[in-house]
């Protein structure tokens, strides 16, 4: 048999072999394609990505909801208004007074307590109740979501962009550049970060921020976005710088330099693609972190300020009426937890997919 087989060799066989080699059996796959294959099988991570996208879409449809379902805007007060529930008129804010309970006992109703969640018994109005100014919480929750997500994503973009540029400069040039930038990070690092953010937030709310070409108004969303983005730069830049220092010693960088590649080319075509997967994962996790940070800032009044809604300042308002209207603080908190959890789980899945052997999994 063996002899016949060898004698079968012909030009045809060679062409078949060649076809096999370049054909479908051996396919070159980029690292991104491999990562996508791994991510596709991680149903938990994908499920939470879908949840996050759903939250974003729901918030984006806030104007539609406000207009067609709730029939009120995010800043419309209904302090003295009533609405119809099951054919009865109900005050948006309790009028106060003494009523009789079901067993004939007297119940003292304090004035100014907002109604709780109505679900759909009031025809789409006050689905999640009202706040202390008689504003529809469901509408404010969606509009607040837009603000919280804008600040979270915007500040993460600012943070990752500047951190990457600074880390590339520090890691690639080393020497004096690295020393100056690292000391700069040390200073921001030594600041109590939340305190710095509150101080900046309060100062800028009063005076606005003159930038030369434009002046940011005191209640502009850009102020918390910039503050959060900038104070967190060293937390992102430090790990990236470490990675670049390690990459810089690799042979392919040496080869690129030996071939005469220019400095920008080495930085952006050789180094950047190698940290791209880290940046993507960091970005996801930083958006989650910044949404929490914004909520804390707005909670103490140094982020988004009333009447503009954000998840943090709705909780702040609810914190003063926990006893009588607990849903006011509860609902936006749940929105924050779901959003941040979705991003954290997706970020985890993304990291597992992009770098299955990541050394430190934070």
């Amino acid at each position, binding site marked *: 048999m063996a002899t016949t087989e060898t004698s079968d060799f012909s030009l045809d066989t060679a062409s078949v072999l060649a076809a096999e080699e370049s054909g479908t059996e051996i396919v070159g796959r980029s690292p991104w394609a491999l990562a996508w294959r791994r991510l596709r099988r991680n149903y938990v991570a994908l499920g939470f990505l879908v949840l996050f996208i759903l939250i974003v879409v729901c918030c984006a449809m806030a104007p539609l909801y406000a207009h067609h379902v709730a029939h009120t805007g995010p800043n419309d007060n209904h302090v003295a208004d009533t609405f119809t529930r099951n054919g009865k008129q109900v005050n948006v804010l309790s009028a106060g007074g003494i009523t009789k309970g079901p067993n004939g006992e007297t119940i003292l109703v304090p004035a100014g307590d907002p109604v709780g969640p109505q679900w759909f018994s009031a025809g789409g109005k006050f689905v999640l109740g009202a706040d202390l100014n008689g504003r529809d919480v469901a509408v404010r929750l969606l509009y607040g979501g837009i603000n919280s997500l804008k600040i979270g994503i915007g500040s993460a973009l600012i943070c990752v962009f500047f951190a990457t540029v600074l880390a590339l400069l520090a890691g690639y040039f080393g020497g004096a550049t690295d020393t100056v930038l690292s*000391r700069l990070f*040390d*200073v921001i*690092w*030594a*600041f*109590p*970060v*939340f*305190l*710095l953010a*509150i*101080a*900046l937030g*309060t*100062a*800028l709310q*009063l*005076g*606005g*921020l*003159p930038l030369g070409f434009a002046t940011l108004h005191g209640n502009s969303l850009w102020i918390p976005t910039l503050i959060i983005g900038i104070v967190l730069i060293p937390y992102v830049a430090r790990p990236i710088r470490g990675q670049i220092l390690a990459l810089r010693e690799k042979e392919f960088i040496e080869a690129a330099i030996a071939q005469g590649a220019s400095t920008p080319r080495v930085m952006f075509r050789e180094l950047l693609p190698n940290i791209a997967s880290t940046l993507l994962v960091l970005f996801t996790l930083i958006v*989650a972190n910044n949404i*929490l940070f914004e*909520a*804390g800032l707005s*909670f*103490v*009044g*140094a982020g988004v300020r009333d009447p503009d809604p954000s998840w*943090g300042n709705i*909780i702040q308002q*609810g*914190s003063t009426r*926990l*006893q009588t209207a*607990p849903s006011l*603080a*509860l609902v936006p*908190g749940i929105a*924050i*937890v779901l959003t*941040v*959890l979705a991003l*954290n*789980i997706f970020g*985890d899945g993304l990291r597992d997919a992009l770098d299955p052997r990541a*050394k*430190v*999994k*934070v």
Partner: protein
Amino acid sequence: MAAFAVRRLLGAIIVLTVVSFVVFAIFILIPGGDPAQRIAGRTATQQNIENIRKAWGFDQAWYVQYGEMMKKLFNSLRPGYTSTYGELRSFTNQTNVVDQIRAGIPATFSLVIGAGIIWFVCGVLVGVIAAVTQGRWTDRTITIAALVGISMPVFWLGLLSRYVLAEGHPLTIFPDSGYVPLTQDPIQWGYHLLLPWLVLSILFIGFYGRVMRSSVLDTINEDYVRTARAKGLAPRRVLRRHVVRNSLIPVVTLFGLDFAATIGGGAILTEYVFQLNGVGQYAADNVSRLDLPPIMGVTLFGAFFIVLFSALVDLAYAWLDPRIRPT
């Protein structure tokens, strides 16, 4: 070792100086309102404001003002020093800043040290359990719980837990907020702080559990662990002496930095929600009034701890891993 200490000390002084400078610049350069106007109040005449500006020295050049402020801060730190005009005082209520910070230290330290012990021990324990039972239901439960823990805003958790567990509900098992000094009544001290401790720890337990889990999983595959097993050591001893000790390095680094950051302002929200009257709450109250001297004092207080602990972390590193020596 001596060179290391000197270099760190010099670095610390430079960092603290720059930090104080930046705080000063934020308040002087950024348009945030005139301090003289704030001190004078709403009904002040132009003459009142002018007088205050002169008396407090706001009419002088910024570097003179900065020098004055630093001099006053050092004066106030000197033991036994008393002088009405030589101490660093708040612009709004004229209280001595250093005294106010000292008054807040017991509450803040009690909160952060207690919470720190809880989060370090629980975080390490949870991480080790998850890593040892990797893939089983305990690991999965811990992983999910840790993720939920790090996704919660701490002030929201504090508000809700206070509402459900400490405000006269049927479920109430804790006393409501406030700080009882340790020297006054140690039992009430712990009882009042238990809920704030748990709330502050939860985020960190989730975070440390995750770091510890991956660290243990990395260490377990090292050659020296296999050697220890091969020479017949008891599994518990291998885990304790060889795996956990080496896996602790990243967690100890994090702990030093987080602990310092929490003392220096990271516990603001927890103090605020539970009304503990600590340093963080003092800062939060004064930030909203844009009162520079208290903010300067608290920021330097926080920065001091952050710088101190990052040096301590480097020393702890050397102890845990003799291959890394401070140079």
